[in-house]
Structure formats: C-alpha cells, structure tokens
C-alpha cells in the first residue's frame, strides 16, 4: 500500500462536512486532494449510521439495469474503481443471478439486454456450470446469469478514504455532534458542536456540506432549511456459513430478500424495505427475519439450517418524500440540494445514493462546492489509491 501521498497545494478555504458515513469520508478525501482544509463532524464513530451496516455488495449495476440504465452504468464504473482503489477491503468473486420461476426465466433475456446496454458484461451460463462454481445454489433454478458483482467491507472502504484525508490534513471529529448552525445574513458562519466531554465548541467554516444521509433532514433543520429525505430501513440476517463465494441474486426486478452476500465466513440475506421518520435505534422485526430466511432458502436451500449470527437494520437515505409502503418505487440516485434558494448560500445537502457509488457522490459534491467557492479544482479520486484504513487510527496529527 502506498502511503506517500503527493503534497498538495493549499487553498485557503475551510469546508465542514457534517456526517462521517461513506459519503462524508469519501468527500473528505476528495476535498483534501483538491487542497481544501476539511473538518468532518460525526456524532458517533465513523460509519455508525447507515454505511457500516450495509451488507457489503458491490453492485455491478445489474440489479438496476432494467429500471434505470444510468444508475446501472454508474455502478459498473464505480465497482471497477473500488476494485482498483481499495483492493484490500474487497472480496471480488463475481455474482450469479438465478431465475427460479418460469416468469423469471422469461425475464432473463430482458435482463441480459438491459445489462449490455448499461455496459455490464452479463453472461448466461448453463445450470451445470453454475453448480460447478457454486454447488450450494438451488439446483432447480431455471436460468443463470453471471455478472461482475462483489463484496466490500462497509467499514474499511470508507475508513481508507478517511485515512487518506487525515494524512492530507483533514480533521476528523468523531463523537462530536453538530447541534447548532449560526448564520449571519445569508451565510453559515460557525458550527456549534457538542464534544464527547459534553462541552460546546465552535468551529468556523467557509462552506458546509450536509452528508447526514438518513439524518440529513435533522441536520438541515439546524439552518432552518428543508431537504426531502425519507429514511427507509432494511433488515439483514447473517448466518454462520459461507455458502458461496459469489453474490447470489434473484433474477427479478429489485425486491425484498433477493440478495445473498458472502462476507468472510458469513452469508448475509438482504433486505427488506419500509419507510420511517426516525432513523435512530432501528431494530429488526421478528417477521422480517423469518421472511428473509424463507426467501434465502429459495436461492440457497441450506441457508436457514445454519445458525443465525446476527440480524440488524439500517436506514437507507432515500431522496424524496411523501412515500407510502416500501418506498421501492423511489430512485436510488443521489442529488445535491443547494440551499441558496432557501436563503443560505454556503450550504448544500447531499441526499440519496447508495454505497457502491460513494466515491462518485463525493466527486459531484466536491465539484459543486469548488465551483461555488470560485476555485478551479479537479477530482483525483479516480486514480490515487488511498492508504490502508489502519492509518486512520495510527496517523498522528
């Protein structure tokens, strides 16, 4: 791993990021490479909100290809970048989509065609060959398609970006909760933060980015502005057995309980989806767990015989509002909300999106912030390999 990051020219501008999840960490890395002074505030440990609880699938984009080609194409590009940039935190063994019903078998051609249009090398293979790769998948499946899916460590990938940012001078304040945003005229001039000792501390910044994910609405409210975010909790169940090396998915439009992700010695079935207004303290419901185990058994018959290792829930940060039911109809795309329209000119919120595209979200937000600050910068996170996540904790400021 390279740890000798080239020295950067320093711009005399400070950007504060609120939220130390996947997006916040990737943003800190991107903005630090551009030469900005960066402050990151996270009320808990980094990635303690949604990012860390991700099942870890690196999406090739195949899951989204029929529904949204642009998201699918972006996932394909970003998945290759993650394999290149954080190889030590990625298990890349590919994925297989299984058609289990006649309807799904019929859908297969549409699926493959959509993948190809989005630049995803999906390929149908025989059931015999699929079983040769992965002997424990449902042998009664009707059609099988391989795609370049994989698994990543949802803690170690963002932390690698945070480590890189730190080594370039970014200051990370974990266990520091932003409780107040002070404005003068049309600008936020300082952030009031509660320290782990319970004291209040003030930080000045030229620009503020809300990367609060499912918590973005509460953060925006501190500046009396609104962002349309709906927390959509999903439950996942991990069992003690690595049944496959490849990610196993259901060859059908995205739904509940249709992905099994291998991770170290575990297999994880994900996920369910509902909507809520409070992303805090989510616990899985018993009926979600039994539903997921039943669905998992359809893809890998032995799945539910293995002992349960853990069950947990995480809140996706869906961009949009006024949803009923599961919220699956909402796009997984991300967007930048500029609060200039609401009267604050140095504040943006980054909402929506998904873990696979964390780097791309950061790139677009950093481009936007740069332009707003009148700085000519360019993104380097496509080519510069960040240091190991271990450096996040060993680096001394």
């Amino acid at each position, binding site marked *: 791993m390279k740890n000798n990051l080239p020295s950067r020219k320093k711009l005399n501008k400070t950007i504060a990021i609120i939220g130390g999840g996947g997006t916040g960490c990737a943003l800190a890395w991107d903005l630090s490479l551009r030469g900005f002074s960066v402050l990151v505030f996270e009320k808990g440990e980094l990635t303690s909100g949604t990012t860390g609880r991700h099942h870890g699938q690196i999406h090739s984009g195949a899951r989204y290809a029929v529904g949204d080609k642009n998201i699918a194409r972006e996932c394909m590009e970003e998945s290759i970048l993650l394999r290149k940039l954080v190889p030590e935190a990625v298990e890349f063994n590919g994925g297989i989509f299984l058609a289990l019903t006649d309807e799904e078998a019929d859908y297969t051609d549409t699926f493959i065609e959509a993948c190809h249009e989005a630049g995803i090398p999906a390929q149908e293979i025989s059931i015999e060959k699929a079983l040769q790769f992965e002997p424990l998948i449902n042998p009664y499946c009707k059609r099988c398609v391989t795609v370049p899916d994989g698994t990543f460590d949802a803690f170690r990938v963002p932390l690698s970006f945070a480590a890189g940012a730190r080594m370039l001078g970014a200051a990370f304040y974990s266990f520091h909760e932003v409780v107040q945003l002070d404005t003068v005229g049309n600008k936020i001039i300082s952030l009031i933060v509660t320290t782990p000792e319970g004291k209040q501390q003030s930080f000045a910044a030229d620009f503020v980015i809300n990367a609060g994910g499912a918590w973005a609405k509460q953060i925006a409210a501190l500046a009396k502005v609104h962002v349309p975010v709906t927390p959509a909790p999903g439950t996942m169940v*991990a069992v003690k057995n690595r049944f496959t090396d490849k990610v196993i998915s259901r060859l059908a439009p995205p739904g509940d309980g249709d992905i099994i992700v291998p991770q170290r010695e575990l297999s994880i079935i994900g996920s369910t989806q509902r909507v809520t207004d409070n992303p805090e303290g989510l616990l899985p419901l018993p009926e979600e767990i039994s539903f997921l185990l039943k669905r998992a058994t359809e893809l890998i018959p032995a799945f539910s015989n293995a002992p349960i290792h853990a069950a947990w829930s995480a809140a996706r940060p869906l961009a949009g509002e006024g949803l009923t039911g599961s919220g699956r109809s909402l796009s997984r795309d991300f967007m930048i909300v500029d609060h200039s329209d609401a009267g604050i000119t140095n504040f943006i919120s980054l909402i929506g999106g998904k873990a696979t595209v964390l780097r791309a979200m950061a790139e677009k937000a950093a481009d936007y912030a740069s332009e707003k600050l009148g700085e000519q910068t360019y993104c380097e996170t496509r080519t510069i390999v960040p240091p190991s996540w271990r450096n996040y*904790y060993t680096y001394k400021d």
Partner: protein
Amino acid sequence: MITAIIIINNRRYTVECSESNTVLDVLESIRKEKKLSLHYRHSCHHGSCGTCGAIINCIEGLMCLTKISDLMHERKTASGKDTVAPQYENGKLIINLEPLKKATYIADIAVYPAQLFESIPETASYKRSIERANASQLEPDSSYDELYKQICSDSAQTQEPVPDKHVFMKNSLIRNKLELCIECGLCLSACPEEFRGPAGLAAIHTALAKNKPETSTYSNLLALAYAEDGIAQCKRHFACSRVCPQGVAPGRRIQELRAIDSKNSNT
C-alpha cells in the same frame, strides 16, 4: 421481556428488553428512547467491522454479538480459571459495561484504538485466497480488461510498476476473501501482558504464510515477532484465544511463531 440495569461510568440506565436483544441493540434503544448522548463505537452490527468491543460484565466481547440471554448464565472469564455469575438487583439483570483496555479513552465506553492498529504491521495483507477442493477459478469478463487498462493508465502518473497482463489475470481469477481477524482489539484488552500483543503477532503469523522465506518482507516480519516486545513476552495465558469472536486463535499462532524461532536458531 426482562428488566436490565445498564451501568456505564457510574451512570445507570434501567431498560426493558428482550432476551434475544444484543447489548448493542439495548444501547441503541436507550439512545433513541431517552434521547441522551451515550458514547460507544459501532458500525456493522454483525461482527464484521470490529468496532463495538467492550468489557461486558468483566469479560471482553463484541456488543453486537452478545445477547442479553448470554449474560443470564454463568460465564468463564478470559483467564479460563474463574467464572462470572449473573447478578440481579431486585430482579433486574445488571449489565456493567467498561471500555476496552490498551486503547485511548474518549468517553463512556468509546475508545480510540491506536495501540491495536499500531501493532499490526503495514505489510500484513488483509486478503487471502480461498483453497477449497474442486473450487473452480473465476472466469474472466470484460470488467477485468477495463480494470487492467485503468491500472496501466494510472501508472503513467503514479510511476507504480504494472504487472504483466498474464500475471494480473492469473492473480485476479483466484477466489478470495478477507482475513478472519476483524481487528476488534478484544485480545489485546484481555491479555494481561504489555507487549505488541496477540492481534499484531497473529497478523504477523498470517502474513508470514503469504510471503516466501527468502523475501525481505518475510524476514522483516519475523524480526518484529522476535523483537523485545514480541513473542518472548507472551506468558501463555491464552486469554486472547478465549475472547476472540472470530476463532483466530492468536495464542496458538504465537506458539507457532515460537516454533519457527526455535527451528531457525537450531540451524
């Protein structure tokens, strides 16, 4: 449902919880329901990130994998000699939470695990190839070509050496997974000795197997194991192996490092 009293830093929180809840679930509920700040590290909630270690009723454990029901039985301590019996106060289960040792204290049970991460050598790779009987290799697809193309074009800027395409493909098509150790620091906290510690030495042991003995990486790793703060300081308590949530068995690995040491000094 049972009633538990969580004790952190002399503060007591009385909560109703299910026996199937984990300690982490209970802390999350306290934070949500009582709307108070309570500091603890957590991320994945399924024993993969390694952040939520704590001393739970005298024994190191991951809060996300320790169920309330686990604490309602007598448990063996990390020393292997004593036991901890569940304690009740007016029928309420006492759950005492303390921060891990050998880490920088932040607040409540949150720590900053610098010592742990310093103990793991930078050359210790986190990836391992999967050796399984009859496991076929992965099949190439165009995503590998794109990946290789990018590595080549990046190298023009970074001056990093680029492997031959043939070598790149050969290495890329081996099934792989992440190392078993989740770097949680339970072993380091449970070990009564002061030295590099079990996690770091286990990482050295794992890394040695991935490097050829004639390489400088191998000899440097071995030198770290033999150094003054290395294997010589291990007094065979095996507390590390008892608390490891992943079955890494750092204690056994340290003994295997000793075996390499004595084999080398005999020749």
